[in-house]
């Protein structure tokens, strides 16, 4: 986990705590006080979503398109 960027770690923490979320739900949660230390540039969201997409590439997270957009979920092993 240490090799992951702060944004990627933040996405993982949020999904671990909350289960399945839409993109905007993740971004809204990232701005909450409990993530303030780890979430560094979530306001615009682009670098944050790019980090989430890298997690998908690494097989740690899945995203599925459905009603309302992408739904993100952590891969449980």
């Amino acid at each position, binding site marked *: 986990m240490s090799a992951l960027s702060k944004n990627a770690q933040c996405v993982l923490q949020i999904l671990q705590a909350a289960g399945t979320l839409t993109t905007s739900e993740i*971004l809204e949660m990232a701005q909450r006080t409990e993530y303030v230390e780890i979430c560094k540039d979530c306001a*615009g969201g682009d670098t944050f979503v790019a980090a989430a997409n890298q997690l998908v590439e690494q097989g740690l997270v899945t995203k599925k398109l459905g009603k309302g*957009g992408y739904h993100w979920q952590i891969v449980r092993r």
Partner: protein
Amino acid sequence: MALKPRQVIGAMNEYYEQYPACAGRSVHKLGQEASGAYSRAREKIARFINASEPRECIWTRNATESLNIVANCLKIPRGSKIVTTSLEHHSGSLPFVERARRSRMRIEVVKAHDDGTFDIEDWKKAIDSNTRVVSVVHSSNVTGTITPLRDIVEIAHDRGALVVSDDAQYAPHHPLDVQNPDVDFSAISVHKMCGPTGMGVLYGRMELLESMNMFLVGGDTVSDVRFENGRILPYYLPPPAKFEAGLQNYAGAIGAGAAAEYLQSIGMIEVEKQERKLLATMLKGLKELEHLHVIGPENVNLRSGLVSFFVDTVTSAHDIASFLSDEYGVMIRSGWHCAGPFHYQLGIPPARGTARASIYIYNNEAEISTLLKGLHALIARTSGEENH
């Protein structure tokens, strides 16, 4: 970000392969070749923007650095006013917001309409005799709208204020003439105009550049540095050298010159014409899509080659960009496009953002058709109207 033509890549490769030396400071043959190419690149940029002389063009890393140089180095009296807009890229407003805070100046923000256009009466009210600087985006990177710069320059100059034009979005898409309207400063990012990343230009009127403080100092900025009576005494060079401290990005500058030359060989009027044709097709197609909302005016003559929009069947514009990339090979930007204030003005929270499709000289109708097809599929799959 624009794609790079072979002419630009070739010019940069040629530098690295044939004469990879420092311009200006090396006496050997390769150094002379580098100096010549570096100097010609500045001439090409000056021709591209119609600066009255190449020395008015300063190499920077990007338009952001160009704007920071102006905001930080211009001598502005305390207590005076700076005028900017709600439509600015963060790089057009924040350097001046910080300068105003530090130097106890007032900032007045002219609010754009929600479609990115302005009411000239608002400018007349905002720019007063106490205003010293107006920082304005020439073409918005969100709405694509073109600012009525000629009117703004006339009002500002009439009241004794300088105009800083953020031309990062305008320069790649339209003929730019810094002498008509006669802006005082212009900031350009070369990566948007077929040039290399990490290269920008600051244009400034010579007398202003001469009177400004330096931004960075050090090697190459001085004619002499004496050591007298235990003191180090620098004698600074005139512009552009006083603003170009240390080893420069020679390959980047040569690439920037090649990009300017490439665009001029096509002709900026032709570039504008081609883009407006594609823009009309794109706007028409986007407007026909249910659930998709376009930001900005319908008149293509009021805008540059981009359209920002949102789709109400997805909760975030990032989903639009991800879907189009993953499934249709179409690359668009999403988010707040470094224009937070304007998104807040529109009531669009950052987590939602907007999607932005940009077109340039190399795009065609078939690519716009693919974009529209992709958006149609996205809306169908996310509205719950189609099962997958």
